[in-house]
C-alpha cells in the first residue's frame, strides 16, 4: 500500500475515487478550485491518498484557511475529503493518511485543524475534540422546504413510516411557521438609516480584510480572515455555487456584509454575515437586522423555498445574529453536525482560542459545496 501526498498526475484518479464512492459528478475544475487553487498557493498541496495496485482506496485532505485573532493572522486547516473505500476499512488508513497531514501541519505551522462531521469517532481517536455542534437558523418560505430540510437534518432512521409522519407534521408546522415568519418580515422596518447604503459587491472589496480585523477588535475571539483574496476564492469564484454579497457602507467605508446563495436543493443559504461598526454611530443589531432582511428577501426573490444559516456557539456576534434573526422570523433548530477541532501541539495557544465559544463560525466555513 502506497500512502503519500498527491503529486501532479494523481488528481484525476483521486477525483474519480470521490465520484465513484459518492456517486457525484465533481469536475476536475471543482477539484482544483477546492484543493489546488485555493488561497494557500503552496506545493505540495496537503492532499493525502492511499493506493493499492494502482487503485485509490482512501483520501484525506486539508484546505488551508487563514484565520485572525487579536494577535494577527495565522494558518489553520479544514479537514476535507475524508474517504476510505469500504473494502479497506479497519486497516487504519485514515490514521495513516492523517499522520502525513499532521506532519504537514507541523511543517507549515498550522495552528488548528478543524472540520464538520457526523462521524466523530474516527476523529476523536486522533485526539480531535468535539467542542460543539452546528445548529440551524431556518425560515421557511414554502412548505416545499420540508423536503429539503428533511434531506439535510440527520435522520434517526432512513425512510419508513417515521419519516413520513415527520414530514407531514413538519409540513403542517412549516405552514404555520412561514405565516408567522411572513408577519415578522412584514413588521420589520426596511428603512435604511440615513448615511447608510447597501450595495451588491460586484468584486471583493479591498476593505474586506481591514473590516475583518476591526470585527475581531470589536467582538473578540477568532474567525476566518476574510480578506478580498479569500472572498474572491470562496464566494466569487466558487465553481459549485457562487454567493451574492450585499455589503453595507457608511459613505465609502465598508461596515460589513451578508453573503447568500441558492443551493441545488432549492433552499436559500445564509453563507456569511460580518459587521464591524465600533467606530460608527449605528447599532450592530440594527445593521444585522438590515442584512438579514437582505438575505431573506434576496433568497426569496431567487425562488428559494426557505433560508437556512448556522448558529454555532456563544460567540457574542453569533448570539446577536441569532437574536436578531429570531426577531426577523427565523427559527432556531438545535440539530446539526459536530464540529471537530485539533489543536496542533507545536503551535502556541492563540489568544483567540481559550474556548470554542471564541470562534465565530458561519456557513462560510463549509468552504465548498453547501451541504
Amino acid at each position, binding site marked *: 500500500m502506497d500512502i503519500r501526498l498527491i503529486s501532479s498526475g494523481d488528481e484525476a484518479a483521486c477525483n474519480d475515487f470521490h465520484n465513484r464512492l459518492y456517486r457525484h459528478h465533481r469536475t476536475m475544475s471543482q477539484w482544483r478550485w477546492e484543493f489546488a487553487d485555493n488561497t494557500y498557493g503552496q506545493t505540495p498541496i496537503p492532499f493525502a491518498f492511499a493506493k493499492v495496485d494502482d487503485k485509490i482506496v482512501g483520501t484525506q485532505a486539508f484546505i488551508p484557511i487563514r484565520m485572525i485573532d487579536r494577535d494577527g493572522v495565522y494558518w489553520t486547516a479544514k479537514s476535507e475529503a475524508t474517504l476510505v473505500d469500504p473494502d479497506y476499512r479497519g486497516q487504519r488508513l485514515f490514521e495513516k493518511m492523517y499522520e502525513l497531514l499532521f506532519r504537514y501541519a507541523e511543517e507549515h505551522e498550522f495552528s488548528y485543524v478543524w472540520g464538520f462531521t457526523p462521524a466523530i469517532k474516527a476523529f476523536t481517536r486522533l485526539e480531535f475534540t468535539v467542542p460543539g455542534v452546528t445548529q440551524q437558523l431556518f425560515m421557511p418560505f414554502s412548505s416545499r422546504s420540508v423536503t429539503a430540510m428533511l434531506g439535510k437534518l440527520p435522520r434517526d432512521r432512513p425512510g419508513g413510516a417515521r419519516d413520513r409522519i415527520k414530514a407531514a407534521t413538519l409540513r403542517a408546522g412549516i405552514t404555520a411557521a412561514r405565516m408567522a415568519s411572513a408577519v415578522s418580515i412584514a413588521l420589520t422596518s426596511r428603512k435604511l438609516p440615513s448615511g447608510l447604503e447597501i450595495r451588491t459587491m460586484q468584486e471583493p472589496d479591498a476593505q474586506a480584510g481591514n473590516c475583518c480585523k476591526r470585527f475581531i477588535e470589536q467582538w473578540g475571539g477568532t474567525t476566518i480572515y476574510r480578506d478580498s483574496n479569500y472572498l474572491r476564492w470562496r464566494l466569487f469564484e466558487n465553481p459549485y455555487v457562487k454567493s*451574492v454579497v450585499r455589503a453595507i457602507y457608511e459613505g465609502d467605508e465598508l461596515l460589513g456584509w451578508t453573503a447568500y446563495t441558492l443551493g441545488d436543493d432549492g433552499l436559500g443559504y445564509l453563507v456569511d454575515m460580518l459587521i464591524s461598526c465600533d467606530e460608527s454611530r449605528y447599532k450592530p443589531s440594527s445593521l444585522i437586522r438590515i442584512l438579514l432582511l437582505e438575505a431573506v*428577501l*434576496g433568497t*426569496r426573490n*431567487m*425562488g428559494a423555498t426557505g433560508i437556512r444559516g448556522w448558529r454555532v456557539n456563544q460567540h457574542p456576534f453569533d448570539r446577536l445574529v441569532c437574536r436578531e434573526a429570531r426577531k426577523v422570523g427565523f427559527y432556531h433548530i438545535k440539530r446539526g453536525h459536530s464540529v471537530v477541532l485539533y489543536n496542533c501541539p507545536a503551535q502556541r495557544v492563540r489568544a483567540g482560542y481559550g474556548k470554542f465559544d471564541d470562534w465565530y463560525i458561519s456557513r462560510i466555513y463549509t468552504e465548498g459545496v453547501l451541504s
Partner: protein
Amino acid sequence: MMTTAPVEYVRAQITNHARLFFTEPAARLLQSDAIRFLTYAEAVAMRGRQIVIPVDLPVPPVPELPWQVQFNGTVLTLWNRAPHPDGDHWRAIPNETAPVWYQHVSGTLMPSWNLFGNTFDLLTFGEEQRLSQRDHHDRFAAAFSPRLERGLLEVPAVNETVALVVAAVVAMSHTGQPSFTLDCLSGPPVVVLSHDCDALLGNDFWTQSVRLYRFIQSLVRLRLPRLSNLWWLARNAVTPRRFYFDNATGMIDIERCFGYTSTFYLLNGSGGRFGARSPFSVIPQLLEHIPPSWDIGIHYNYDTFLNQDRFAAQLEQLQEVVSHQFVSGRAHYLKFDPFRSFSFLQQFGIYVDESSGWADYVGYRNGIAGCFQAYDTEKQLPLDIWEVPMVIMEAALIKQHGADAVNFVERQLQHLSCIGGALTILVHPGQFFNPEHRQMLGIYHELLKVCRRMGAITHTARSLVDQLRR
C-alpha cells in the same frame, strides 16, 4: 445562373459559426481552398483531396425524408439527399443507406445532403418566403413549417452541418479521409439567457382584468370559480412588485450564483393588451439593479412594428434613462417580419436581434443554435445586423414538454456539447418564480443547474455577436 453572393454568404456564416464554437485553426481551414462551392456538375468532375459543395441543387418545399447518422457521440439528422454521383469511383461514407459523404477514389469529398441549399434556405427564411400562412399576429407560426411534420424543428441543422464539415476538413488535411469525431475541436456549449420585461408590476389593468374575467367567466358558466384569481388580484394590488419586479432582481441574483449573465429587454411606449404593461417609471428602478456585466436591450413594442415614428419614440424614451446606445432587441410577441424588419431595425442602430423564434413552439426556426448575419434576399446582400434566434421560451417549453422540460433542455445541451453551439433561453420575470403559474416554480433554477452540469458557458446575444464584429 446563381450569383456568387449566396455562396459567399453561406461560406461566411459557416466560418463565423466555426469562429465562435470551434478552435481557431479549424475555423481557418474552412476559409481555405480545401472547401469549394461549385455546381453539381463541376463538383462531380473535381478530383483530388478537397471538399466540394454543390450550390445548384434545388430545395424542395417540403423536406424529403430525413436520415440519421452517428457523429461525435450524438446523432445528426440530414435531409434532402444529394444525388449519388455516377460511376464506380464514388462511394458513400459511412454507408449507402445513411450516407454523410460521397468520396471519389482521388479523395474528393461531396456532402450527401443538400448542404448549401438547406443552409441558405434556413438562414434566409426560405419556408416563410414560399408560404403565405400567418397567425393573427401576422407571424409565421411553427405549425406552418413543413419541417414540423418531419420532426425537424428541433434539429440544429446548421450546427450539425458545420460540425460535419469541420471534422471532415481537419481530418482530410491529415489522412485524406473524413472523420466523425471532433477530438477537442469544439468548445463547451454556450447558453444565451434573456428576459423580456413585459410586465414588471402585477397590478396593471390588463393583468388584473384577466384575473377578474377568469373569475367571472366561471360564475357565468355556473362553474366553481377559482378563488386563486381573486387572491392574486388582491395580493398584487397590495404588493405589485412581488413575483414581477422582485423576480427580475431574483433572476439577476440566481444568475450571479451560477456565474452567468443575461440580457434584459425593456418594454416601454404604448400600453394596452399587447403593449407595455408597466409604467415607464419602473424601468429606471430596474436599471439600478442590473449589474454592469449584464446587457440591456430594447423590447420593440407591438405597435412599433415597421413604424418609424413609434419605434423612434420608444427608443428615445429609453435613451433618456440609459446612457449607452441600444444595439440589441427583441420584438414583443415576436412580431417580426424577416424580410423587412432587419433593414428597419438597422436604421435605429440595432445590430443584434433575438426575435426569430416561435411563441408556440420550442425549436430552431433557422436551424441554428448560435447566430448569423441577416440577408437581404432582394438585393442579395448580407446586412450588418445579426440574428440570435430564440430557441426556448419558458411557457412554450412547459406547454410542449411538461414534466420532461428540463430533460429536453439537457438533451439539447448534450447535443450541442457534441457539435458546438449556443442555446438561447428566454424567461419572463413574471414567469420566473410565480406561484400563480405553479408549473414554472423552480424551472429556471433547474435549467441553470443543467447548464452548469453540462459545463455550459454564458454569453449575452450581444457579446456573442461582438466577437464576430471585432
